């Protein structure tokens, strides 16, 4: 029953999204007589990238125009990954050249069909994402009988599929939509692998585990920043996705000796997949330089194209002789969160993963709206922490404030000419504050919940005493 309702929700949302995209395309298309300039829904992409999603909907590494350019160059025997400009995440995206509607531009006889196909290609990953989210939730809620999963399975697809962040990215045909789906797939299979392990303990290497690692390897291959999600995912593969926030304790479903070996096994499998994907990419483009132009781009930030993140203006304004130092600082800063959060939330690796997704959305070098959309959607999986959030309302307000001001200020700066770069920078700074507030609150609530659940039972017994949670803030 619940499963059905979730599917129905996803279907309904997807139908709504497709209709919306088609309607927008129809609205933006010029009259039929001059159909030449219309290329399979590119008008919508242009509208989003110049309108509500200006600067924010896609980064240079996920821009649809860059994807099309890469395909165009590749099909004409030129090397789009040799120079470091105008290329999307990975040479594997060249597989899109199998889809003629993207690769080819110009008039097409079956315009409506190709339009629909284009919309489908960028809506399907969202449907997968929503479905994976529901599966993650199911894996997490499978043991806790108290939670009413029916409403969650209904709400989760809604908050992902109807989130303006995700819709904008999808309409702008940013490849980050695909990256989100792949990441969620990796997490969903990681959640399920453990439960299979439980039911069939004789299986050491489950099918889901391999799928999960393959998907994560693919996600890391497409954009290197996801590497910081590897440790929590390994924990998740070895541990359990269940909600154990209330029962903190050391990570241990295995003995200490076996845990290391199991972790190394998983790591090895991941490295095998990752290397294989890198080899495939190398075979596609025929040289190793693609690594420096794709992965290197997210590390060394050669393009200062504004995005909702913190890096671009900082390194635009940075003095030349300090740039390498601060590049290292910013990259290491991302890595610094991994170990503490994984250690602190070792009893609930899924929660650690969730917090790291938030950190990635706030602090990575080329974030887009869809990264924030993913973080927001992830909140739906952890309803148990809601009562312990300290300031959900201000966080939401700051987030909305930033989301509304970003396109406005980008326009004032770039199109209208009445603002300057500081306007957009200020709105992204506010966005980073919102992200930071959400992360801090998530960490707080995740730790606070343990105390509350524990305390409650005992405290009720003692009459006549008031209790107080004392913090340093």
């Amino acid at each position, binding site marked *: 029953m619940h499963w059905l309702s979730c599917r129905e929700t996803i279907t309904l949302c997807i139908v709504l999204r497709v209709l919306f995209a088609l309607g927008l395309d129809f609205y933006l298309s010029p009259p039929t007589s001059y159909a030449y300039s219309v290329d399979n829904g590119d008008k919508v992409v242009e509208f989003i990238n110049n309108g509500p999603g200006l600067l924010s909907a896609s980064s240079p590494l996920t821009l649809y125009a860059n994807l099309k350019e890469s395909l165009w160059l590749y099909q004409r025997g030129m090397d789009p990954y040799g120079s470091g400009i105008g290329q999307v995440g990975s040479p594997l995206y060249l597989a899109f050249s199998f889809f003629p509607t993207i690769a080819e531009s110009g008039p097409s006889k079956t315009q409506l069909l190709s339009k629909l196909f284009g919309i489908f290609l960028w809506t399907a990953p969202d449907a997968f994402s929503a479905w994976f989210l529901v599966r993650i939730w199911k894996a997490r809620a499978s043991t806790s009988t108290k939670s009413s999963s029916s409403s969650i399975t209904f709400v989760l697809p809604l908050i992902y599929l109807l989130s303006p962040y995700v819709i904008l990215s999808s309409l702008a045909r940013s490849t980050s939509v695909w990256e989100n789906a792949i990441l969620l797939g990796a997490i969903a299979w990681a959640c399920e692998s453990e439960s299979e392990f439980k039911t069939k303990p004789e299986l050491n290497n489950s099918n889901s585990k391999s799928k999960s690692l393959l998907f994560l390897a693919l996600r890391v291959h497409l954009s290197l920043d996801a590497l910081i999600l590897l440790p929590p995912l390994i924990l998740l593969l070895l541990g359990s996705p269940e909600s154990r926030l209330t029962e903190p304790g050391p990570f241990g479903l295995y003995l200490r000796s076996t845990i290391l070996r199991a972790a190394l096994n998983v790591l090895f499998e991941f490295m095998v997949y990752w290397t294989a994907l890198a080899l495939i990419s190398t075979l596609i483009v025929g040289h190793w330089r693609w690594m420096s132009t794709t992965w290197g781009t997210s590390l060394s930030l050669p393009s200062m194209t504004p995005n909702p993140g913190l890096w671009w203006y900082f390194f635009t304004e940075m003095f030349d002789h300090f740039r390498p130092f601060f590049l290292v600082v910013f990259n290491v800063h991302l890595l610094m969160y991994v170990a503490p959060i994984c250690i602190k939330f070792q009893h609930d690796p899924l929660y650690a993963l969730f917090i790291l997704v938030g950190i990635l959305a*706030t602090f990575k070098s080329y974030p887009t709206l869809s990264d924030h959309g993913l973080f927001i959607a992830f909140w739906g999986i952890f309803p148990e922490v809601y009562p312990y959030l300290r300031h959900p309302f201000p966080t939401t307000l700051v987030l909305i404030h930033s989301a509304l001001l970003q396109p406005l200020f980008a326009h004032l700066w770039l199109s209208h000419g009445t603002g300057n770069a500081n306007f957009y920078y200020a709105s992204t*700074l506010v966005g980073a504050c919102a992200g930071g507030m959400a992360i801090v609150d998530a960490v707080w609530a995740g730790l606070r919940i343990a105390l509350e659940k524990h305390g409650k039972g005992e405290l009720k017994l003692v009459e006549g005493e008031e209790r107080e949670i004392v913090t340093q803030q």
Partner: protein
Amino acid sequence: MLRTSLFLISLLLSSVFCLENINEEFEEYLSIKSLRDGRVTSSFSFTTLLRDAIPRDPRTLAFDDDTSQHYTLFPLSLGQILRQYAITELHLTLNAGKWNYDTWGYPDEPDVGVGAELRAWMAGDSISSIDERWQGVRNALAGLFCASLGSLDEQRTTSPRLSFPPEGALPDWGLPHELRHASHASEHVCTENLTPFLKLLPCKSLSGLATLLNPHRIFDADWHGIGLHVLWRPEGVEVRLNVQLVFDPLRISAQGKQDWSFHSLFDRKVEKACPVASSTRVSVELPNSGVYRVYPEPQEIRDGKAYYSLKNNNEAWNIGTMWPTDFEYRICHAALSSPDPALVPFSVTRNLLGPTQDRGQLSIVLTNNQQDTLQLLYLETMPWIVQFYLHTIRVHSDNVPRDDLISNISYVLPVPHARPATFESVLTLPGRSTLTFTMDVAKAFLRYTEHPPDAQRGWDLPPAIFTPLNQSLNGSMSLGSRVYTPSLLVDLATPDFSMPYNVIIFTCSVMAFIFGSVFNVLTRKFIVVRVRPDPPRNQSVGTEKRLEDTDSDTLNELNTSKSGVH
């Protein structure tokens, strides 16, 4: 004995001098033409030929053979540069203004792109050695001509395949020859470039045609450019220094007449010829129609041109042309009666469209003025700050989409902060048609140190170059004369230059704040504190009481629980 030896030495010396005089040859030539719009173009060229000389073989660069360079007419400072960097062919032009092909026709010297343009053919066995020498020759010429040629760095250097064939010959050393080309549209040409230029001439500006090069008038001209061309032909190395000017006599004259003379254009006359010049000639192109008078009486009239030789004459030369009537703009009645035949086979307009600072559209409109189909080689050497989207190339011929009219696309992708893009293709123009080429471009966001001092003005983009491809009867292609478009100005988004410190502080603060908060929460022990209701003094403080970690041990005994410990 002494006498004979002295005689022998003097004989030897004289023979050497004679040899040198034969080996080096200097010619001056000035061609003046009245243009359709009443302007006058004058083109000076000073040619020095070093007979039987060959460019230096780059393989001898390793051995520092310091053979002396003795020239009498050939400019030594230039010879040293050419020798040190083993340059086979070199072209440097410094121009200001837009050459108006439609009303002025083709220029005598084809390199009329705005700003500085430098290109060199160099032989070399490795790319790195060529790049090193290219850098060296850039800096040396920058010093020689007092021009900012040092800014023609790797970010502006390209190697187009077809558009710049060598004008002379390339020695067959068994080494590949490479072309390096760079242009900088915002470079201005002024007096400080002309002075070193005149110094390269054997007579400086003291005598001969170079007397006319009066800086006050040259840099007042509507269009002016100076150029240096070094090339090798089997008979020797040729250095050609040229100055091209477009004057507007209508602007100078009070009566609105297009009369011109040396005196009216240059404010000078040729008082005496350069004694070492083997020939000093002036040609005046005679107008096609109308009543006019060319003075003094030309010595020779051939192919619609009047020729003068300024050698062997003791009086001052003041060549000029007079019209009895005022100048009439022919454009006014061109629309009514039959228009003048086009001076050039095609005309070009290049624009950068789009209102925003992050993307735009490059638009080129080409009009074929002929009945015949025309094939054009189209070259863009674009700095990386403007990134092409080749998949958005659309070609329309008379508003009909014709993507088949573009072919042979070759594209070298730009590298951010390092290398410009080189885009070459062949456009086919059907007879009497207008071809529109559009392509989307993305404008880069730059680091604040990369912006030029006056950043709001924008960046000058180098001109595009169109070269007609003429198919000869035996099927081989030959290149016509190059056509340069005017440069473009691109408006890039600028950061706020006044607040690098503020941005660094703001961003670092936010990151530090989030980092601190997260780690504050992560390293915290959560404990329940039971506060007895009775003591009133504790009650007031108790709601927000600070606890040190040392206190937690005592509180543990109060039957509390801690997170992280089971």
